[in-house]
């Protein structure tokens, strides 16, 4: 790489230094000689923007839940529907799956196909376990007459938790596709970018679960 970049490792954008040599010769990314950022950076950054907008979507569901939490219409409240041990298991499964997804991305960075596939498989199984527990919870609630049509509280509950579950289900489909593509096409640059985006998506789902886990379930046990 160029001398200026090496000379200022702590200031890669050369903020305040660009004018010494003129913008045209600047080696910083996005300026003069620096040229545009690599495709990997641009793709992942675009996906990061998508994830943040997904957080905004969830913020809407969270706001609806926070507002409608006490509108139980004489039906069950959040205290009546929480099963602490089920929630603890769901949290553990999703956190572990985030961990194994991270190990998979490390194996992919080192170009180890079998290790990456194995990590993805474990991630998928853990995610599937999470989803199975969530479906079980929904089935029990609907069986007891606490379905989404019972009260405004339950509508917002199913919308919020169900939206997260839908994301996990879509993530599982994506994960299966990534395993097949890695197997068929190997570590091509475009497959690497898709894998990077998948990992971002999966970690982001865990962040949303932390919010649901706290705001819906734990807060529900407090009240």
């Amino acid at each position, binding site marked *: 790489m160029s001398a200026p970049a090496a000379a200022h490792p702590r200031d890669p954008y050369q903020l305040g230094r660009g004018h010494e040599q003129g913008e045209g010769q600047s080696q910083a990314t996005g300026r003069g000689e620096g040229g545009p950022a690599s495709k990997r950076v641009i793709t*992942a950054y675009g996906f990061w923007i998508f994830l943040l907008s997904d957080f905004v979507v969830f913020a809407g569901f969270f706001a609806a839940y926070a507002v409608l939490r006490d509108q139980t219409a004489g039906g069950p409240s959040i205290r009546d529907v929480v099963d602490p041990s089920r929630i603890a298991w769901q949290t553990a499964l999703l956190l572990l799956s985030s961990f194994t997804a991270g190990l998979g991305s490390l194996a992919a960075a080192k170009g180890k196909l079998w290790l990456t596939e194995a990590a993805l498989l474990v991630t998928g199984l853990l995610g599937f376990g999470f989803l199975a527990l969530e479906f079980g919870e929904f089935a029990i609630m609907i069986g007891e007459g606490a379905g989404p049509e019972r009260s405004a509280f339950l509508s917002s509950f199913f919308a919020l938790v169900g939206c997260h579950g839908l994301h996990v289900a879509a993530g599982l489909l994506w994960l299966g596709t990534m395993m097949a593509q890695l197997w068929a096409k190997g570590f091509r640059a475009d497959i690497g970018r898709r894998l990077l985006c998948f990992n971002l998506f999966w970690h982001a789902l865990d962040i949303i679960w932390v919010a649901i886990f706290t705001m819906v379930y734990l807060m529900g046990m407090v009240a």
Partner: protein
Amino acid sequence: MSEQRRSGDDHDIAPGDEQAGRDEPGSGVTGYVVGLVLAAGLTAASFLVLTTDLVWQPAIPAALIALAIAQMGVHLVFFLHITTGPDNTNNVLALAFGVLVVALVLLGSMWIMAHLSHEPMPMDEAMKRFR
């Protein structure tokens, strides 16, 4: 070595890229293990706060929110590799804007709806407006 490092792009780092942590404690397997341990510890702490009387009863919701925000920070740093490094400027700025919008939507809705349920509009006034 990743594609990004080979391409010689030293100035930006993709969010979540393994190269992000080369100068950070959150790099490699160690980073993920530290993240897992911290996240599991914070989750366990949330359960403890709830099930024991370690924390003063009325302060439990505040404690739970603090623990949740801490855990989100752990996920961002150790799993998504969002750092304060100069090569992460764009990622952090986008995150800051996302947090701003989320806070506005969430807190704004709760604030407005709490006011509405504390001070409802008189019925005849409401009928006049909706007519």
